[in-house]
């Protein structure tokens, strides 16, 4: 049997969606607002304004693996992450927060935001357990959907960013 090479298969493999084709900033912001109200507190709102650059940043993220592969990354200042932890734990918050407490609570916020971002993407995807530390490197500046917000006047950014480098140009 003769197979005619139309180039279709190669073209299919040479393209993949970037996140801005799949989700917009308004959706990411709405997901974050809902997570904040539920987890952080009913009166806690995220203001859609860019704040000052974060001096001592801490990030939490989950990885999404599927038709689109990347990470949902929350970044804020370390002290703001501690404040978020206290807000989350409410009366259960210990007097002295351990790094582990902050990693757990800040990671859970990334888990909830990331899970809902994943659900908004087409197709079926897997979700990793959350991680906390220095944000994963940005691999493709075209494959990013980022929202900058303020919580209690402090900068919180949410970046939905691809894990793969750009495809070579043809």
């Amino acid at each position, binding site marked *: 049997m003769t197979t005619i090479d139309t180039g279709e298969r190669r073209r299919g493999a040479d393209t993949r969606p970037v996140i801005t084709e799949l989700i917009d900033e308004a959706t990411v912001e709405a997901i974050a607002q809902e*997570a904040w109200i*539920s987890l952080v507190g009913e009166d806690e709102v995220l203001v859609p304004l860019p704040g000052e650059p974060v001096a001592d940043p801490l990030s939490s993220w989950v990885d999404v693996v599927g038709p689109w592969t990347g990470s949902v990354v929350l970044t804020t200042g370390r002290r703001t992450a501690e404040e978020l932890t206290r807000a989350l*734990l409410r009366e259960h918050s210990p007097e002295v927060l351990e790094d582990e407490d902050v990693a757990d609570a800040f990671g859970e916020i990334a888990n909830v935001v990331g*899970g809902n971002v994943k659900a908004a993407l087409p197709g079926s995807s897997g979700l990793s357990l959350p991680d906390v530390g220095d944000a994963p490197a940005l691999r493709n500046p075209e494959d990013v959907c980022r929202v900058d917000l303020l919580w209690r006047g402090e900068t919180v950014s949410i970046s939905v960013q691809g894990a793969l480098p750009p495809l070579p140009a043809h």
Partner: protein
Amino acid sequence: MRALVIDDSRAMRRIVSGILEGLGYETRQAGHGREGLDVLETGWVPDLACVDWNMPVMDGLQFVSAVRSNPALRSMTIMMVTSESEHTQIVRALAAGAHEYVIKPFTADAIRDKLALLGLLPQEAVL
């Protein structure tokens, strides 16, 4: 009434346990499915298990399957409380034997409403 809360996030365990205790439940906590089974093996069998999906060691779906394969635990109601909100995942959890599904983020009222549907609101919470 008793509830077992299984989630790898301590913060989330505290939030869910706090809601349930506010409704009158006695709660215990576990950090993953295997720990949850360990609690059940002590003979402390709850009326309700609130189970996260993505956890290390043993995930929520594996926990549901393990519980459902044990006839002694047949009376226990399982509610998935998870950020896995894809329809296919919900169907998988229900097919494995979970009774209800709550998607994170949730409110205390959402948990209460689900428990009311399941007939698992303690008397003091109904009054």
